[in-house]
């Protein structure tokens, strides 16, 4: 048995065991581009693309090896069922001193009504009952699959007897993220070679794309929380740098600062949560994620500690993953170049928070008592976010902001899914969302290229389906996926989340009974369909409005040198022809103009192949991802094809809590489909009426919001983003800047300065007294007195020194006589 397991452990796969390569390659690329990029023929872009190609190929290889690893673990499990597969963990060097406690087993029994197969044996006789692994409904035994944990440096540094390590922690979740980050980053690199072509900081841009990818991969692979927070901050820095890519404009650098500072708020939570876990979980004093998870899942950590840690970590999630009330930075982050928005603010970085919940899921699962509950902080924050984001997306006229709020909303879905215990659904949605949201963002960039470099849907877009067939087709596919059109990936992942809530008994085998989450999720599903229909309609349907736009025909560009050279490029690079130039009505508009396109007028054109190819690949994936997790009850599909995502990505083992998997619910699927169809239909009907009134219209002339009353009030609230920015900027910052600052100034001037002045006065008086009395009289008196005394005594003694030998001799004899007298009388 040992030999077999040792074999299984060693055959984990080269890419899984050498996962340090994943962050290392793009990091080297970052350094190369930074130092040598400007001298390279393609200004550093080729290095980035090569590095990302390596990463993506390695991610594919790692994926294959991970699947092999899971299969190996399962075959070992099925042939040797009587043996404890848990011992594999011991061989991996992980702490397995404590198995699942009774609590763990209890939750399991509560949530599962299934027979449990004890796989204890050998030394685990005591642990036998608690190592029970539930049988899946198909009768397929869930083998425990150990993660591949590798330490690069076993003692990075040691403080107080605690070794800080550097290492990688590879499991299905990490491999899935490697694939997603690698792929989207690669496509964004390719896209960017066209999109930011001729930009003044082209090389810098690619360098930071590489650094960002390296940081994100490091975050994904971190095996302890110290590494995790390091990578977490690094992606924050990259985000800051890329949002502020065109920092010459105040708006952009403000947006970058806002993103950075808002994230600081949450980072404090991450730090506190991390420290809480350090002192409470994993047998005490460890940052090791595996140990913490094992401890949390086994129930050996106090519930209070886990709740505190989970709440603190939730704050970090709220800032990084744009959850409601710290989400305000995310839409502003659209000030960055569009590829950055696609890569960072839609597909990868913002899911870091979601990834963190998934990575430390036992902490949240136990700390928030997710199993059997009906509401908890994570699910509530997620559900609120998804509605807030969805509603705000309605009132944006900037296509990127629609997508940004949509991202907020979808991130809310993921957090909500994790909050209700639907782990697989959350990760599946993370993946599908990455594909279609990246496609939408890159599509919006392509559209903007054609439309005066503006992102304003109302003034510069419309009717583009005729001019940009490829962009249109891919955008449509991604829109359908996002809106939850059946058979598209977004439909399945969203439906899994809704089923995972287990509300109203509509789905079976959910973890709890989260009715509120189901209702909010369904409403958001409807809103998503409606606002994406609006976005799609304004962009691609109707007539092109760009010709009359204030952004069009602005004539001469203020091109700098980079543009001058770009103007010499051949037509192949210039098939994206833009209308005129700029305005400045929105932060990024003016800047996307830095792409080196000439100031032609005329109708919009399709973008070049380096832009459309990534779009096509992503759109294809938005559809293909459907098949990654086919519901388990679809008996017409071979069993080996069903629930593959759950099978390979979801962790199995004692470092993961025993969660229940909600089954596909036809009722929920139909309800959500109806809601989405009605919402989308309403939106279409609205715009058809508007179009009938005026082909160029973007809204009904006398729509509901123009009549006052509740709709107008609602519009006003949404247009002001629920007054959150007002709350933060005017109320909180304003209070700090205004009354609080004045009060502080008054306090400073009167109280603090009073104390200081008073102290100074006291000291001055004391010093004066000391000088006049102590120094001048006492001390100087003593000094002078001793001088005078010495002088007087000297004057007296001087007389004896008459210089005559006989005088001295007389004294000597007198003294001797006295001495003799004393001796005679006294002795």
């Amino acid at each position: 048995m040992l030999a077999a397991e040792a074999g299984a452990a060693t055959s984990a796969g080269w890419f899984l065991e050498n996962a340090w390569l994943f962050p290392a390659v793009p990091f080297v690329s970052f350094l190369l581009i930074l130092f040598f990029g400007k001298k390279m023929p393609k200004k550093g872009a080729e290095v980035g693309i090569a590095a990302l190609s390596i990463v993506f190929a390695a991610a594919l290889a790692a994926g294959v090896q991970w699947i092999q690893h899971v299969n190996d673990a399962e075959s070992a499990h099925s042939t040797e069922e009587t043996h404890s597969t848990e011992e594999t963990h011991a061989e991996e060097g992980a702490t397995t001193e404590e198995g699942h406690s009774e609590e763990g087993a209890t939750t399991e029994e509560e949530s599962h009504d299934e027979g449990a197969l004890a796989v204890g044996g050998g030394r685990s006789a005591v642990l036998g009952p608690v190592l029970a692994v539930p049988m899946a409904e198909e009768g397929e035994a869930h083998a425990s699959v150990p993660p591949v944990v590798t330490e690069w440096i076993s003692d990075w540094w040691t403080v107080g007897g605690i070794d800080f390590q550097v290492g990688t922690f590879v499991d299905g979740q990490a491999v899935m993220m490697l694939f997603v980050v690698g792929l989207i980053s690669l496509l964004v690199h390719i896209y960017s070679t066209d999109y930011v072509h001729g930009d003044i900081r082209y090389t810098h841009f690619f360098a930071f794309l590489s650094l960002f990818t390296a940081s994100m991969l490091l975050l994904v692979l971190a095996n302890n929380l110290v590494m995790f927070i390091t990578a977490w901050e690094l992606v924050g820095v990259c985000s800051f740098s890329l949002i502020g890519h065109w920092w010459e404009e105040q708006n952009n650098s403000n947006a970058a600062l806002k993103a950075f500072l808002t994230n600081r708020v949450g980072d404090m939570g991450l730090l506190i949560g991390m420290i809480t876990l350090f002192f409470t979980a994993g047998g005490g004093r460890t940052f090791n994620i595996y140990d913490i998870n094992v401890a949390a899942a086994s129930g050996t950590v106090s519930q209070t500690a886990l709740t505190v840690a989970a709440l603190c970590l939730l704050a970090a999630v709220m800032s990084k993953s744009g959850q409601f009330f710290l989400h305000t930075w995310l839409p502003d982050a659209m000030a960055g170049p569009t590829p950055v928005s696609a890569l960072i603010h839609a597909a990868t970085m913002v899911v870091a928070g979601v990834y963190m919940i998934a990575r430390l899921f036992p902490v949240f699962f136990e700390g928030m008592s997710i199993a059997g509950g009906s509401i908890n902080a994570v699910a509530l924050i997620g559900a609120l976010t998804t509605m807030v984001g969805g509603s705000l997306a309605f009132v944006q006229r900037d296509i990127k902001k629609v997508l940004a709020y949509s991202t907020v909303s979808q991130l809310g879905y993921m957090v909500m899914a994790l909050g209700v215990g639907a782990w697989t659904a959350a990760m599946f949605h993370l993946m599908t969302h990455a594909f279609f949201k990246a496609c939408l963002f890159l599509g919006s960039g392509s559209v903007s290229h054609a439309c005066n470099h503006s992102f304003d849907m109302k003034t510069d877009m419309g009717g583009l389906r005729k001019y940009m067939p490829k962009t249109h087709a891919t955008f449509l596919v991604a829109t359908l996926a996002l809106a939850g059109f059946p058979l598209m990936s977004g439909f399945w992942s969203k439906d899994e989340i809704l089923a995972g809530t287990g509300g109203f008994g509509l789905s079976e085998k959910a973890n709890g009974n989260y009715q509120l989450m189901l209702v909010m999720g369904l409403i958001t599903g409807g809103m998503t369909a409606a606002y994406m229909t609006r976005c799609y309609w304004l962009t691609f349907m109707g007539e092109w409005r760009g010709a009359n736009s204030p952004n069009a025909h602005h004539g001469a560009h203020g091109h700098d040198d980079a543009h001058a050279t770009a103007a010499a490029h051949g037509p192949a690079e210039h098939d994206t022809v833009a209308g005129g130039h700029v305005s400045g009505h929105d932060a990024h508009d003016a800047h996307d103009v830095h792409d080196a396109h000439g100031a032609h007028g005329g109708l919009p054109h399709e973008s070049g192949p380096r832009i459309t190819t990534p779009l096509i690949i992503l759109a294809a994936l938005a559809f293909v991802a459907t098949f990654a997790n086919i519901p388990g009850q679809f008996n017409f599909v071979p069993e080996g094809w069903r629930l593959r995502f759950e099978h390979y990505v979801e962790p199995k083992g004692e470092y993961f809590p025993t969660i229940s998997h909600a089954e596909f619910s036809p009722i929920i699927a139909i309800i959500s489909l109806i809601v989405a169809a009605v919402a989308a239909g309403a939106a279409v009907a609205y715009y058809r009426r508007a179009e009938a009134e005026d082909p160029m219209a973007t809204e009904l002339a006398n729509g509901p919001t123009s009549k006052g009353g509740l709709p107008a009030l609602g519009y006003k609230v949404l247009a002001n983003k629920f007054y959150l920015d007002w709350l933060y900027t005017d109320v909180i910052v304003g209070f700090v800047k205004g009354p609080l600052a004045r009060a502080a100034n008054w306090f400073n001037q009167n109280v603090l300065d009073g104390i200081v002045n008073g102290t100074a006065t006291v000291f001055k008086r004391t010093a004066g007294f000391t000088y006049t009395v102590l120094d001048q009289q006492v001390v100087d008196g003593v000094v002078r007195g001793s001088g005078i005394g010495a002088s007087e005594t000297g004057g007296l003694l001087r007389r004896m020194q008459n210089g005559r030998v006989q005088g001295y001799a007389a004294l000597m004899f007198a003294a001797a006589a006295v001495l003799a007298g004393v001796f005679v009388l006294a002795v």
Partner: protein
Amino acid sequence: MWLNQFLVLGAVLFCIGVYGVLARRNGVMVLMSIELILNAVNINLVAFGAFHQTPAGQVFALFVIAVAAAEVGVGLALVLLIYRNRSSIDLESVDLLKG
């Protein structure tokens, strides 16, 4: 007894010597008075040595005579130099160390 007579003689010599040291203005006379004092001591030493039947007193006396000879040598040399400088050996006038 007979020791008293020697002690009285020593005491008388000592007093004469002390008077000579303190009262004479001539440097040579002062040196001679010092010799008187020393010899008064010698008489005492020899007398006590005889009284106690020990040669130690006489040995001390011999040492004192030897040292006194050296002392007179140095003292006369000083007086000679004073005379050369000042053409006088009046000790009253030798008061350069007066404070």
